[in-house]
């Protein structure tokens, strides 16, 4: 990997540009293994009601992905109003002893899980004022991405395709426009299906990719975690290297001089 090529989010430095979710695994052991193999340093988690009356000794997610080893990124998955999202972030901050990096997502529609942009803007404003460091899930609209940056979000995370769809980068042009205009990290969040999708996102110049289903729903999640790690690294190196220009016709790669025929 290129030397000193690190991802900086809210002043913290990370070596991995792959961020992973912790949902949809068959058990905590698979979560632990896939997370470890992915090389991710930031892991997103959901906040839910504790199961009252059930075995309180059942293993806890944060035993599998301990906060002293990973940066835990609580998300507001499942929130459909700005109020619920803000409430979830405040509970998460208490849960994680004051840790204030959060992933904000306010959803607008159950079928597409597209973000509700007006509610997202409203929640982002409240959270930034309340000293949260907000990484925000949004649509691939370059103007909204810029607005969220100007509001003080520490990273903007446009979707590449609907959450959990695995459709890949549907609008590379918009993602590129968002990146070109940004002064904060831009991470593709949602829509990646396989390693080449992750590489394409990175070749576009994204600072990172956040994914969950693409790894957890693979037939072999641990192996896919390894593939994603490599896809991210390959795409990043290709971006830094600068690809050759595309040409309409062939261009021989062996010299013509010295031909003996």
């Amino acid at each position, binding site marked *: 990997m290129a030397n000193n090529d690190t991802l900086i989010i809210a002043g913290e430095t990370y070596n991995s540009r792959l961020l992973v*979710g912790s949902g*949809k695994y068959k058990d905590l052991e698979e979560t632990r293994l896939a997370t470890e193999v992915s090389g991710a340093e930031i892991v997103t988690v959901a906040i*839910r*009601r504790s199961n009252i009356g059930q075995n309180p000794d059942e293993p806890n*997610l944060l035993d599998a992905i301990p906060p002293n080893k990973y940066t835990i990124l609580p*998300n507001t998955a499942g929130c459909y109003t700005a109020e619920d999202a803000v409430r979830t972030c*405040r509970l998460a901050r208490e*849960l*994680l002893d004051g840790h204030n990096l959060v992933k904000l*997502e306010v959803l607008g529609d159950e079928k597409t899980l597209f973000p509700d942009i007006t509610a997202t803007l409203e929640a982002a404003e409240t959270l930034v004022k309340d000293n949260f460091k907000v990484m925000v899930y949004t649509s691939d609209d370059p103007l909204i991405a810029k607005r969220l940056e100007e509001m003080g979000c520490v990273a903007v995370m446009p979707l590449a395709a609907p959450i959990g769809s695995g459709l890949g980068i549907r609008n590379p042009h918009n993602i590129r426009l968002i990146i070109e205009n940004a002064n904060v990290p831009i991470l593709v969040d949602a829509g990646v299906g396989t390693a080449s999708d992750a590489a394409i996102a990175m070749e576009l110049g994204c600072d990172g990719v956040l994914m969950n289903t693409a790894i957890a729903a693979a037939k072999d999640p641990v192996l896919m975690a390894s593939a994603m790690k490599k896809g991210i690294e390959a795409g990043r190196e290709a971006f830094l290297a600068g690809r050759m220009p595309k040409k309409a016709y062939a261009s021989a790669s062996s010299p013509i001089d010295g031909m003996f025929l």
Partner: protein
Amino acid sequence: MVILLNGEDHVLSNDSTAADLVIQLGLADKRVAMEVNLEIIPRSRYGDQPLKDGDKVEIVHAIGGGSSDCY
């Protein structure tokens, strides 16, 4: 008294505090966060937080989830 705990009625002896509740639930040494009537109660203050009949209490923890597709 009866409080509304995570959306369900829950019986608790009178004069209980938030600390008594988490002990009763076996969650005293677990990483949880608590809201009483929409107000977050810091873990360090559970012992000073009296509960009263009808209080709406939410106790949450972290679970696996990525983007909204976590279920």
